[in-house]
């Protein structure tokens, strides 16, 4: 299918990295970056394509992480099954939160607030409930081996998260090309008009939230398997809600490669800032915040949008008439 070739190419290039790079620190950096890209892709389906800006995607990330960890530690469930259950739980939470909020017709600022509140409630519950290990958190026992989803080599973990990212990229592309994707974009552009044309707005948004929740939960499941430790501040913390929305917005909202590009840029900037000034607390996040403001200021459609704009400007110089038509169609 058209449009899948760039994804295959990108994944193939990324898959080759561990053959060239052997440094554990670098691989660790790339694994975390890809994990954030995955969480961001989940946000992108709902926020980028559907226009519903969630400020609480930690709700899904944390649910994935906790379900994976708690099922293994307390119920002896196989890690792979736990991983699948974590993703399913993320989808279920997406469905529940989506059904509740969209039934009330919450949009814009209100939607942002209610998602934030759900994540916060889950964080408080996880910090006191005995099943999650309360304030201590849950530690997954070290048990290296494929059956326990734990690998000695960083490269294997890298390929696992890359596979997940690849699946999320293909899913996003398929949604983009489908009728469902067209409905979703119609909702983003003008909800009332979409409704008037017969789009079942509520179901479309809820379905987007289910998919979104599942993908971001997958990132949480991966977090639990990779770091083998989960607590309420990590799993349901605001940091992941912010990273999940930051990466697609910086890379390009509502584009397939936006979250991946955004994660690479944001994480590299953070690491770069640390290299320049040493490991000072807060500095990488200062850079994040500043980059977020600057990107919205100068390229409101993210870096990918910025590239398209520059390309358009260059072609306009060559053929003024053709590009002005393009411009008109774009708005």
């Amino acid at each position: 299918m058209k449009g899948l070739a760039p994804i295959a190419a990108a994944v193939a290039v990324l898959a080759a990295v561990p053959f060239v790079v052997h440094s554990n620190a670098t691989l660790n950096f790339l694994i975390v970056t890809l994990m954030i890209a995955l969480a961001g892709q989940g946000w992108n389906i709902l926020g980028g394509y559907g226009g519903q800006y969630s400020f609480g995607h930690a709700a899904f990330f944390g649910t994935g992480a906790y379900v994976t960890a708690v099922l293994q530690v307390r119920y002896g469930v196989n890690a792979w099954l736990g991983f699948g259950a974590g993703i399913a739980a993320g989808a279920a939470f997406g469905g529940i939160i989506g059904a509740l909020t969209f039934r009330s017709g919450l949009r814009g600022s209100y939607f942002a607030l209610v998602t934030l509140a759900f994540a916060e409630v889950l964080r408080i519950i996880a910090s006191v409930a005995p099943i999650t290990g309360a304030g201590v958190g849950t530690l997954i026992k070290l048990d290296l081996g494929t059956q326990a989803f734990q690998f000695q080599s960083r490269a294997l973990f890298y390929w696992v998260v890359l596979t997940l990212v690849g699946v999320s990229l293909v899913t996003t592309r398929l949604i983009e090309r489908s009728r469902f994707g067209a409905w979703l974009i119609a909702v983003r552009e003008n909800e009332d008009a979409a409704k008037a044309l017969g789009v079942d707005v509520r179901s479309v948004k809820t379905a987007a939230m289910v998919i979104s929740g599942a993908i971001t939960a997958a990132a949480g499941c991966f977090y639990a398997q990779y770091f083998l430790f989960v607590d309420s501040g990590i799993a349901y913390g605001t940091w992941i809600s912010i990273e999940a929305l930051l990466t697609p917005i910086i890379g390009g909202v509502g584009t397939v490669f936006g979250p991946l590009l955004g994660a690479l840029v944001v994480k590299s900037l953070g690491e770069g800032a640390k290299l320049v000034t040493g490991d000072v607390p807060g500095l990488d996040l200062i850079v994040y915040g500043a980059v977020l403001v600057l990107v919205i200021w100068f390229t409101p459609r993210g870096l990918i949008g910025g590239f398209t704009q520059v390309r358009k400007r260059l072609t306009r110089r060559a053929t003024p008439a053709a590009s002005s038509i393009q411009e008109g169609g774009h708005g």
Partner: protein
Amino acid sequence: MLSPTILIPAILNGLLTGAVYALVALGLTLIYGVLHIINFAHGALLSAALFAAFFAYRLLGLDPYIAVFLLSPIFFAFGYALQRFIIGPASGGDDRNMLLITLGIAVVIENALLFAFRADTRTIDVPYAFKTIDFGFTFLAVPRVVGFVAVFLVALVLWLIMTFTDIGRAIRAVAKEKLGAELAGIDVAHVYAMTFGLGSACVAVAACLLIPNYYVNPSVGNSFVLIAFTIVVLGGMGSVPGALIGALLIGVVESLSGLFLGESLGQIGIFVIFIVVLLVRPSGLFGERV
């Protein structure tokens, strides 16, 4: 546990806590009422104001109740500049972008504080921090009673500004009908920035009233601002009396649920109210329809 000797002080203390919440919420609801955005930087501004009040006392020896007259103009100017020169131009007028810009600013301010002052929690020790007033049936801490009175003074000042000054009329005009106000020759960018400045000044007042018997660290503002969001939604976004009543209500709910459920779980009561109000009546108690 239901005896009045425990219940009445708990309710009174809840009202006093609610008063400080009200100050944070007033700024938030003012900004929402005019700009129609939720200012995610509000919590970070509160942390910054608490640090300012802390250093005003430690370095300049200024009592927080005097520093308030210095800090609120400074924060007014800061808020004005923030909206006029960063949030306004950077968002290009798009609501979703404004949300994200305020979030970006919040991240920058909070981490700049962390970078400069580290995560240590600090307190000041004013002589009246632990003084109490004997009301016959209960004792109440002096700084909290001062805070309670001050909230109503601030609300009164805000009301006077909104009702009797030109800028107040302009702010109300923009809140009601932005385009019409613009056509009537009102400088909307200026009004937006004035509103943001007033909201930030409220934060500075809240900080000066809080610091005598509270603490400061780079993320302290966040715990307040989530509660302030709840209050603003409960009272109706943009409604000043709604914010006052909502805040007192939330203060009492927090105090009582803390009494019955324990400190850490007590917070849940607030968020449950928050979610239920959002889902059932998003316009709040006094707000206009969403």
